[in-house]
């Protein structure tokens, strides 16, 4: 592995962590904010606009904008087929946050799902992040 490969791998891991955390925290705050509202969202845009005025929903949306930008940066040098499974760690972080902060029950199926995701990530993370030439 040359210096260029090491630099890309290090940068990829750093951005993957930012993508995972901003996604998990963004979805957590978004869900928390939406669940405080009792009405079910209809197809009307007005419902969504009103929902976005909730401060927790705003925080969730701000984190999801960070997620979008960091994921776009990651895709400027890494393959989509690498980014998708590696950033799926966000599902695991979300499940752990649900268990700790929302006191959700974690079934045996969920732990099995978590194990499969971690195994999948371990496999993909061992491949080169980029297999095509960028501009």
């Amino acid at each position, binding site marked *: 592995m040359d210096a260029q490969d090491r630099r890309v791998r290090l940068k990829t891991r750093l951005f993957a962590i930012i993508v995972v955390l901003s996604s998990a925290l963004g979805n957590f705050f978004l869900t928390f904010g939406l669940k405080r509202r009792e009405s079910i969202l209809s197809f009307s845009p007005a419902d969504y606009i009103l929902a976005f005025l909730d401060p927790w929903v705003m925080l969730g949306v701000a984190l999801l904008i960070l997620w979008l930008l960091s994921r776009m940066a990651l895709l*400027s*040098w890494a393959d*989509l*087929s690498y980014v998708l499974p590696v950033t799926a760690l966000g599902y695991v972080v979300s499940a752990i946050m649900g268990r700790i902060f929302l006191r959700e029950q974690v079934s045996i199926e969920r732990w*099995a*799902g978590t194990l499969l*995701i971690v195994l999948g990530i371990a496999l*993909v993370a061992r491949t080169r992040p980029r297999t095509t030439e960028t501009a």
Partner: protein
Amino acid sequence: MTNWILVGLVVGATVLGDLLQTFEMRQLGEIRDFRPSGIGRVLASLARRKYLLLAIFFMAVSFFAFMKLVTVADLSFAVPATAGSFVLETILARFVLKERIDGRRWAGACLVACGVALLAH
């Protein structure tokens, strides 16, 4: 029936959004300058890319369709039903984006898709 229409909308919009986003970011090239001025230049350049704007539109469609899906269906249905997009996107990354996907990456994508499906139980 509405649930499956929403699932189709989420998966279709996610796949199109990700493919277009990857295509445009690859055209832009590796981002190396993360100083505020560098980020500003990248954002200005991104705002002029038509397919990237279309990608963001598809991602917004996917986001709102998923929000609607979880209000009319159980999360334990919504998440595994939409997790299939992992495998579909890996196939399209191979044939449309010409990524070289070896056995480990295929196996990893399938394990993650199965894991996400189980996680919703």
